[in-house]
């Protein structure tokens, strides 16, 4: 098996706030194989964006520090890399698409200029004509019609979906090995979301890039990901092949997420929400951060006293639960019990 393109080990990131230090990402470990799609899912504040910004070296150093861990890209640790080196890496080997295309594009510069800039920044000897031709090619690849004319337009002349296409074009301009998309469709309508997901798949196919897809939307994960990482309160609580995780989750939080979700396919069964609310970064519960909301824990002492490690639960799967071997039966009982109630 070839080495993974990206290997994150024990990554821990602290953020200073006026109220104290928040440990936003704790001991994050995962790998990304070449060409695969890794979904990272979690609710707001779960640390999914912070983890990826740490990987990219995009956190403001005044407020945020990586306190522990390594990020190996192609076998090299990039947490210690200089800003210059990181800047060269981003936009070339690492392409990024952010959630809000409106704030990621410069409003006073034409799409063409921004796209050509992205192309030229990482390629030394390229004539303006070549760069422009490449820009047109990229825009057409992501499905922007009339690419030649569109180059001379400003971001405000693009609709939300078109802007996000332009962002994707920029991210894949230099055939990155890793494409990172942070909530790329959250701001978009569902019909536009379907377009953009398709464009991402095309972009990935054209460049052979591995894709990290960050989202709060389990549907997007189900639709796109090969493997999934579930985050809660700054930690990875479960990971594995997407089908296995959806069909037989091994962490009670994943069970809760899935049972909270109304389905387009089935009717009016009562949703089973997770009780309570996620903890804030400043008041993380002791032991397992999920234990106050966990209905399987049943107030067992181990859950509130000891932090469960992310351990192997078979078949390339990891889960951070002391009682992960009970989850399958507990979930079945819960679903059955719920049917009986109804």
């Amino acid at each position, binding site marked *: 098996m070839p080495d993974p393109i990206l290997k994150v080990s024990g990554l821990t990131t602290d953020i200073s706030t006026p109220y104290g230090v928040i440990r936003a990402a704790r001991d994050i470990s995962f790998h990304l194989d070449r060409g695969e799609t890794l979904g990272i899912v979690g609710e707001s504040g779960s640390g999914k964006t912070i983890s990826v910004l740490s990987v990219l070296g995009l956190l403001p150093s005044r407020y945020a520090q990586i306190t522990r861990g390594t990020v190996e890209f192609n076998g090299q640790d990039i947490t210690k890399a200089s800003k210059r080196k990181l800047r060269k890496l981003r936009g070339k080997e690492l392409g990024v698409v952010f959630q809000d295309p409106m704030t990621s594009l410069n409003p006073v510069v034409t799409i063409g200029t921004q796209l050509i800039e992205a192309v030229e920044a990482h390629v030394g000897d390229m004539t303006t004509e070549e760069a422009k031709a490449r820009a047109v090619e990229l825009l057409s690849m992501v499905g922007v019609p009339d690419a030649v004319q569109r180059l001379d337009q400003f971001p405000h002349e693009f609709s939300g979906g078109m802007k996000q296409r332009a962002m994707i074009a920029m991210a894949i301009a230099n055939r990155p090995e890793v494409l990172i998309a942070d909530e790329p469709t959250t701001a978009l309508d*569902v*019909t536009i979301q*379907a377009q953009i997901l398709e464009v991402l798949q095309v972009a990935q196919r054209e460049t052979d890039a591995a894709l990290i897809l960050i989202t709060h939307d389990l*549907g997007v994960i189900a639709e*796109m990901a090969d493997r999934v990482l579930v985050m809660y309160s700054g930690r990875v609580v479960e990971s594995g092949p997407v089908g296995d995780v959806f069909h037989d989750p091994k962490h009670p939080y994943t069970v809760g997420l899935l049972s909270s*979700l*109304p389905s*387009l396919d089935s009717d009016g069964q009562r949703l089973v*929400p997770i009780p309570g609310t*996620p903890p804030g970064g400043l008041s993380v519960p002791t032991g397992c951060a999920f234990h106050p909301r966990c209905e399987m824990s049943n107030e067992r002492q181990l859950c509130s006293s000891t932090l469960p490690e992310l351990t192997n639960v078979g078949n390339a799967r990891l889960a951070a639960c002391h009682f992960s071997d009970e989850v399958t039966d507990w979930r079945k009982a819960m679903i059955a019990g719920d049917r009986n109630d109804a």
Partner: protein
Amino acid sequence: MPRSSIHERAETGEEILVLEEVTKLFPIKSGALRRTTGHIRAVEDVDLTIRAGETMGLVGESGCGKSTLGRVAMRLLRPDSGRIQFRGQDVTDWNGRQLRELRREMQIVFQNPLASLNPRRSVGDIIAEPLKIHGRYSDGGQRRVEELMEIVGLSTSQMSRYPNELSGGQQQRIGIARALALNPQLLVLDEPVSALDVSIQAQVVNLLADLQAEFGLAYLFISHDLSVVRHVSDRVAVMYLGEIVETGTKEEVFSTPSHPYTQALLSAVPADDPDKRGLGRRRVLEGDVPSPADPPSGCRFRTRCWRAEAICEQSSPELTIRDGIDHPTACHFAEIDDVLGRLRADADTSERTET
């Protein structure tokens, strides 16, 4: 006209709110003189009926006019034409004191809980406000506030807290408690769970279902999220660019969709199970929604429709029962296509052939 009758509680199933050919335009002003140079046609010729105790789901993408329609239905906005009847009374031209009476029976919950709560008022004050406005606070108002907090699942110890101290889910519960204060018959819920995380979203969806069962409330549930709409609604109306293009019971709209837009919308929703992923087989709509300031002639969906023909450009299809379809649909070429069933069947037959 005996005004008091709007306060009589309708029997379940009775029509309580009826909109007839309602149109709402917003002027576009430009130039130094701010002259009106055009109109955003936010809602045009919409008929909608809501019955006591039921949930009417109103679904559509951003800018389709669903929120405007909700506000017109509430009479927060006055329609430019058309009639609005509440409990048999024509309320289209009501104002002032009459509208205040109407508000007792119809309340609204907004999408963004924090923005719709006064940050300088305590939770207790916010929930008490409708009672005070309607002169009901002096008589047991404090007890009513406590009762409301319990109904929506807030602890009465949070009464003196401020909205920003609470989580998004709790803030939305405050908004719901405030809307319930006067014991209304109808709630307009404008994207009530869209700003919430899924685990919290499910809590609020369940709460709304419980409240409806307990108090016989009717809901106009506005959302862009088709899964949520399917979960909560009895009947559904699909909006596109200011018009309702298809409406019917939940089963009719979700299992026998007949308007191309409804079909496209349904097929665009991501699968909830990796085995059902179907992007390749989906009907991905091309292009964006046209501007409501200058909607296409004829059928408004024709510019993105794969079935459009010459007639679609010339004549606007009426929302009506058509051959072989048991619910109203506004398409010249309406044809039932069980998009979801098809995706599901495909998933069952194709053994997991993921890329």
